């Protein structure tokens, strides 16, 4: 059973779109190629990692070192986190939780009401914040012949209503940012081009009014009459919803239902550090006629110093600076102190393993990439595995729930110990400081490890014939630890064509013994063709030795499916949910080839598309939490309209989705998720942005950030 997106049971998704701070312009392009042979999504990453030798002529030598002095001051971090987000005074009733429009002044046809999910028939429409939100309707039906021209295209608009509020506040940033959730379902979706209903948000300071946000109705055929950008479609199936019991907008017709919520974060032009008085005006109007209805749904208006969610606790965990510079024989070797890319969180998000050239434990002054574990407030180095010059850490995976006395007790590592070494898999036991080597091969690679929650099993990609019997063709294998590591198991031997099909991105179920492996493969592992050229998502049950595919209706060879992440549930729900990213158009939504997050339920064989993004944007990673619910995950989203990365957490209950933004940035690199004892998800990610105020990363090194999203 495969459900389609545009149904009443579809998830309500939330998508962020933010204004463009100046730094965002530095990131002009992003791309997500998914070539065969790559184990992860390739994204253009303009991070500088320089290790070069300049001029081998002998000029005499001296050694200059810029010693990295750690400035990790957790007290300072805590202070900084407390110091941000201070804006005195706020909008009145910005979340409409009073159930009224108190604080707001209505205009135009004044067809505005505070509604909740029960006001949508059949619904539901979950509020992005609290239970209430506002609806500005162009209906029901024809209201007036008064004309407007909200979008300035010269065509008449009708049935315009507005809501407005003036707020005085003290800002700690310039410009201050206006954040709100919005949704613009329209019955014009399948109507001729000129019936392109519109909405906008304006801010006014003194005599200056600025349009800070706008949109027009989605069109199934992709056309647009208004200069305002088309919003994402609610779906392509006629549902014929109506708004009920919400005078004066009762009987507003929403023929395509209500699609995903989105979040906006826009700069308020003219705001200064200090006191500001701003009038915010929100309008919606019916373009070219006054027949088919549209409704602008809005919620949770706040003014903040930045785009980060007010409730989010964003911390910069690592603090690296400086570099190691050696001059030898006239050659200069410059090694920056930096973190990542490998990063992996435990089940709580309070501990993580990562690769770094930092000197966090005082024994790495030469800035050689090593593996470290951060656990609450302290760093330890994986001292059993010292990486020499020319070596590299390819991947790390931290185990999950408590084993012995530690969360994340075990670290799976893929690394080359020096320039001449082969890539091997290791496991480090943090509790006993014991290293075990899982592979010992030559002339081939072992990489991208994934460790089970209890640390007893590791799956990885390998090109070693000794493990696969398939030459250098990349497969996924796994090993299990008892007293020693078992021989790697080539469980993909059933796939065809065996000699050439490949396996990628293994992800063991976390929180248990790792009985399930989710992966991407070009092999026909279930005997069902076709398999996408770039691979489909499969699940292998180790104890039962059975394969299942995340069955879809999408069969395009060019479809990118990647990044599978399996849950850690137990008993009947074990291995039930797999999240992954795909640009496939599985639900035949018009023009929907964006990278979206999907969840496949192996118990019910149901695929859900849980996000819906606009063209030019997309999700590039999803990591399911190992809390066993199958609902919580982290995401990385590239907002094409702002050229900003947005990292956060999501909660999908099978019907509705809530996304919580952790932070926006010019560049994000890798993200993982944990859920703490309070059931609050935390997204951990790498970024070279300076996300905190006051500044903590002025040198632009890649740092590990943590955003707790209650």
């Amino acid at each position, binding site marked *: 059973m495969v459900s389609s997106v545009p149904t009443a049971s579809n998830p309500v998704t939330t998508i962020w779109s933010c204004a463009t701070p100046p730094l965002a312009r530095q990131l002009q392009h992003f791309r997500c190629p998914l070539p065969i042979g790559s184990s992860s999504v390739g994204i253009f990453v303009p991070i500088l990692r320089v290790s070069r030798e300049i001029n081998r002529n002998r000029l005499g030598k001296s050694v200059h070192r810029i010693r990295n002095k750690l400035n990790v001051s957790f007290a300072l971090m805590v202070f900084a986190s407390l110091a941000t987000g201070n804006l005195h005074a706020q909008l009145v009733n910005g979340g409409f939780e009073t159930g009224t429009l108190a604080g707001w002044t209505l205009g135009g046809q004044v067809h505005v009401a505070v509604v909740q999910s029960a006001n949508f028939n059949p619904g539901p429409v979950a509020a992005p914040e609290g239970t209430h939100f506002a609806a500005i309707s162009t209906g029901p039906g024809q209201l007036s012949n008064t004309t407007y021209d909200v979008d300035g295209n010269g065509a008449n608009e009708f049935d315009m209503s507005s809501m407005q509020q003036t707020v005085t506040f003290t800002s700690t940033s310039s410009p201050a940012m206006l954040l709100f959730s919005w949704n613009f379902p329209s019955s014009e979706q399948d109507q001729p081009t000129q019936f392109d209903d519109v909405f906008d948000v304006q801010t006014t300071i003194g005599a200056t009014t600025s349009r800070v946000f706008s949109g027009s109705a989605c069109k199934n055929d992709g056309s647009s009459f208004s200069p305002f950008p088309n919003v994402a479609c609610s779906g392509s199936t006629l549902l014929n919803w109506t708004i009920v019991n919400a005078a004066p907008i009762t009987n507003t017709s929403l023929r395509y239902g209500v699609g995903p919520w989105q979040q906006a974060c826009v700069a308020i032009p003219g705001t200064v550090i200090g006191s500001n008085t701003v009038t915010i005006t929100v309008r919606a109007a019916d373009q070219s006629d006054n027949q088919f209805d549209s409704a602008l749904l809005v919620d949770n208006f706040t003014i903040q110093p930045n785009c980060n969610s007010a409730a989010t606790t964003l911390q910069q965990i690592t603090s690296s600076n400086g570099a190691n510079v050696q001059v030898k*024989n006239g050659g200069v070797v410059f090694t920056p102190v930096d973190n990542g890319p490998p990063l992996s969180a435990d089940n709580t998000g309070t501990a993580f393993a990562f690769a770094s050239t930092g000197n966090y434990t005082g024994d790495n002054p030469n800035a050689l990439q090593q593996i470290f574990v951060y656990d609450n407030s302290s760093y330890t180095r994986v001292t059993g595995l010292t990486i020499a010059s020319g070596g590299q850490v390819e991947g790390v995976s931290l185990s999950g729930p408590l084993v012995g006395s530690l969360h994340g007790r075990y670290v799976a590592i893929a690394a080359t110990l*020096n320039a001449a070494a082969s890539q091997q898999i290791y496991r480090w036991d943090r509790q006993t400081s014991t290293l075990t080597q899982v592979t010992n091969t030559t002339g081939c690679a072992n990489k991208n490890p994934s460790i089970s929650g209890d640390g007893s099993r590791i799956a990885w990609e390998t090109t070693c014939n000794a493990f696969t019997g398939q030459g250098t063709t990349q497969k996924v294998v796994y090993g299990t630890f008892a007293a020693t590591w078992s021989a790697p198991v080539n469980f993909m031997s059933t796939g065809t064509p065996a000699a050439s099909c490949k396996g990628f991105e293994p992800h063991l179920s976390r929180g248990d013994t790792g009985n399930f492996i989710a992966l991407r493969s070009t092999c026909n592992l279930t005997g069902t063709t076709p398999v996408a050229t770039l691979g489909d998502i499969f699940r292998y049950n180790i104890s039962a030795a059975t394969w299942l595919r995340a069955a879809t209706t999408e069969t395009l060879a060019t479809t990118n499916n990647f990044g599978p992440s399996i849950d850690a549930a137990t008993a009947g729900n074990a291995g039930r949910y797999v999240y992954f990213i795909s640009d496939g158009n599985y639900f035949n939504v018009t023009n929907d080839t964006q990278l979206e997050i999907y969840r496949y339920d192996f118990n019910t064989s149901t695929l859900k598309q849980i996000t819906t993004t606009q063209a030019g944007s997309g999700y590039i990673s999803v990591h399911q939490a190992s809390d066993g619910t199958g609902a919580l995950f982290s995401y990385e989203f590239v907002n094409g309209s702002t050229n900003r990365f947005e990292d956060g957490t999501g909660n999908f209950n099978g019907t509705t989705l809530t996304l919580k933004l952790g932070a926006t940035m010019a560049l994000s690199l890798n993200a993982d998720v944990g859920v703490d004892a309070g059931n609050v998800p935390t997204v951990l990610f790498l970024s070279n942005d300076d996300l905190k105020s006051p500044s903590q990363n002025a040198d632009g090194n890649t740092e590990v950030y943590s955003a707790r999203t209650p």
Partner: protein
Amino acid sequence: MMSALVRLLFSFAISFLAVATVHAQRSAPSTFDIYGYRAYDSSGPQCSYSYIDASGGSLLNLTAASGAAAASDDGGAVVNLAAPFQLYGVSGNTLVASSNGYLAAASDLSAEDGGDFSGDCPLPAIADNSAASQARIYAYHADLDGAPNLGNMYAQYFAVCPRAGEFGVAEACTVVQWQNWAERSQTGVLNMQAVLYHTTFEIALQYQTLDASQGATATIGTQSDNATSGNAYGCGGSRSLAPATAVCFFDPRYIPVQIDRIFGNGFETP
């Protein structure tokens, strides 16, 4: 009565401190690490200077670590030991001697190329040459070169060490010697040696002559595998050396009787 008792106790305490101070002044400077290596120099009775001529031993043929520098500048040579030597409790039969003034516990040049030309401070510190063993004896680790003074490196095994170890037992030793060596950008001739004892695993570093830096830019110490423990007697200019002096490192299992075994500060030294 109470006052007299307090006065007596106070006097006793003063006397104790005075004795302790005398002993502390008598003790040579020492350093320690997590493993328990303890280092003393020849300014005190814990470590003697008695240079051994090892030039009659095997000439070490250095191999360049890379094409960037000559073997005498950045190179290494394997020293096959006639008897095992334990460094940080780990036994080995081979060492790699580096032109840059250190010995590494390694079986061959693929494990240690001798090319680490920059001394680290403090220890432990992960070494940064391409093929690096972290378990090392830093005799005089700096950017050294044999070419300026036409130097040679030698290794020689003595069934009975000509320099008696501080533990007081007759034992074999291996001497690795840098003869007529130089530190780049410094004047002067560096003649030094590492004496490795095969029973007590004492390490005696002896400096016959020094370059003009007098060790100010060199790292002198020991480090364990994986850089989990390290003992820098001197680094980054923390201590200078003098010609005709020695620095001794004692394995915690074989602490000589003339060294206090508890505090390392002279309090209980006889």
